[in-house]
């Protein structure tokens, strides 16, 4: 009995979390899938009606925009935030005397609720109030920065604000990674006369592959969840030019009382995300564990 217990301790430790995830993630996804085949409006109903919600979804030009925006926003946001986070972490890793203060400055945006910070960003990005007006005030009359009010460019303002909010946390992740790299290896490389940048690209960064995975997952999670940001900054506008699947889904489920439609959009969104994420995770985990 004790032996059995000893052998199976790891499984027993993992079991409660695993069961919780099975129910509260996969069970709820199954629930959503079911509801997406119904005509649920204000509250969920369970009579299956077929693919009507998916037909409606794909007939909606607003959903097209939202899905497109997810790609544009998701890719730019993840790539830029990751690169910026890594660069900042490396810069901060150079024995900076004021590291504590700078680190907090880079991190603090995560602390602020976007409900209000969105308003500040809205003013900064507004051509009549913020950066454009300020630079023009310095004498550069032709300076233009009107992305916020331009339907084709507004999505990029969301990218800027999102990077502002999350790159600091990515930096923290990388910083923790940098600080766990074995100092002996670095010392040895230095003794061999390998230049610093080579030490980073050839030794340190490759050894942080698991941190990249964490950063990627955190950022994709934030990209999918980017909801407060859009609501506070553009409200999905101009028009619905900056709508994202999350805002679309929320609008359908909670302001329009169209839960069936919301469920179908959620399903498509999750499929898209899984189609991108699963291969990446698969290759990451496989190469690590062989």
């Amino acid at each position, binding site marked *: 009995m004790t032996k059995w217990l000893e052998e199976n301790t*790891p*499984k027993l*430790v*993992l079991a409660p979390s*695993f069961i*919780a*995830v099975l129910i*509260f*993630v996969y069970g*709820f*996804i199954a629930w959503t899938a079911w509801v997406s085949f119904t005509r649920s409006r204000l509250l*969920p109903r369970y009579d299956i009606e077929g693919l009507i919600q998916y037909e409606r979804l794909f007939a909606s030009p607003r959903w097209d925009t939202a899905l497109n925006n997810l790609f544009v926003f998701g890719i730019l946001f993840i790539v830029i935030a990751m690169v910026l986070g890594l660069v900042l972490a490396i810069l*901060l890793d150079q*024995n900076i005397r004021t590291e504590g203060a*700078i*680190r*907090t*400055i880079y991190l*603090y*945006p*995560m*602390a*602020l*609720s976007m409900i*209000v*910070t969105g*308003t*500040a960003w809205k*003013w900064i990005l507004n051509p009549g*109030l913020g950066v454009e007006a300020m630079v023009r005030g310095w004498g550069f009359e032709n300076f233009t920065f009107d992305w916020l009010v331009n339907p084709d460019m507004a999505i990029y303002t969301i990218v800027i604000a999102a990077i*502002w909010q999350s790159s*600091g*946390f990515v930096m*923290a992740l990388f*910083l*923790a990674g940098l*600080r*766990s790299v*074995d*100092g*002996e290896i*670095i010392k040895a490389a*230095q003794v061999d006369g390998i230049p*610093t940048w080579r030490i980073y690209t050839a030794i340190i960064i490759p050894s942080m592959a*698991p941190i990249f995975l*964490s950063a990627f997952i955190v950022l*994709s*999670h934030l990209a999918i969840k980017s909801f407060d940001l859009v609501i506070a900054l553009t409200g999905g506008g101009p028009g619905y030019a900056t709508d994202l*699947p*999350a805002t679309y*889904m*929320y609008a359908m*489920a909670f302001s329009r009382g169209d839960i069936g439609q919301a469920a179908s959009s*959620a399903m498509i*969104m999750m499929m898209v995300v*899984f189609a991108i*994420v699963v291969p990446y*995770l698969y290759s990451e*985990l496989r190469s*690590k564990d062989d």
Partner: protein
Amino acid sequence: MTDISMTSQQRQSQTGKIVLRWLLYIALGLFALFYLLPLFVMITTSLKSLDEIRTGDLIALPRDVTFDAWRTAWSGACTGIQCEGVRPYFWNSILIAIPAVAISTLLGAMNGYVVAQWKFRGANIIFSLMLFGCFIPFQVVLLPMARTLGIMGIAGTIPGLIFVHVIYGLGFTTLFFRNYYVSIPAELTKAAKVDGAGFFRIFWSIFLPLSLPIVVVTVIWQFTQIWNDFLFGVSFSQAGTQPVTVALNNIVNSTTGVKEYNVDMAAAIIAALPTLFVYVVAGKYFIRGLTAGSVKG
């Protein structure tokens, strides 16, 4: 402990080094400005009177500095028929965030330890499944979760909110610890096992002491997520258990009322103070070479 930038290139010219150093500080400073810009706008706005905001430039320095907005935000702004500011809601948020962060971090550490160091058949699949859970949009789980909480009898209560936050934080906390522990050589566990140490003993006396940087990262992430959560807070609370984000939202979001931007901004900064505090305190513990040093020894 090693320092790569200072000890290596000793033969490089002193001037080149100083120039590089300056460039480095300038770059860091410029980034700091970018990050600080919105905070600057928020603080200056919070120090203005409403009349000044209504007439003046939104992004100018205040003409007359007043702290009234801060006082109002803390203890006088209306969040409904009660006008007591964000103060009464702070306690709810603390009661939710601290247990939820502690439980999810501990569970994450144990899970990560199992997945990284005690691999059994299927452990990887289990880990992958938990990871994909990070990608579920929270809007999706609201309604079935509401039903579940109702059945469990903890709808609208603080334990209910803790439960929800722990569940949806597990994927991340497990991920963070797993990715940190995976880079610790498996020989360490093996050697300890040979010495007769068991599962918990190894975790407690070898892995936990190595984990400070990643505990810091995890706590920062979880605390921020839970403290700033609005969606769960608004859906799974009732009168008396609403967290501070709901109060903040009530102060800020009025559809047809007069908007007091100065109070909004002050309230937002006040609501963020605990997270900022965690960043300042926890940030100190990103200690270089902690793992490397101990593994070596």
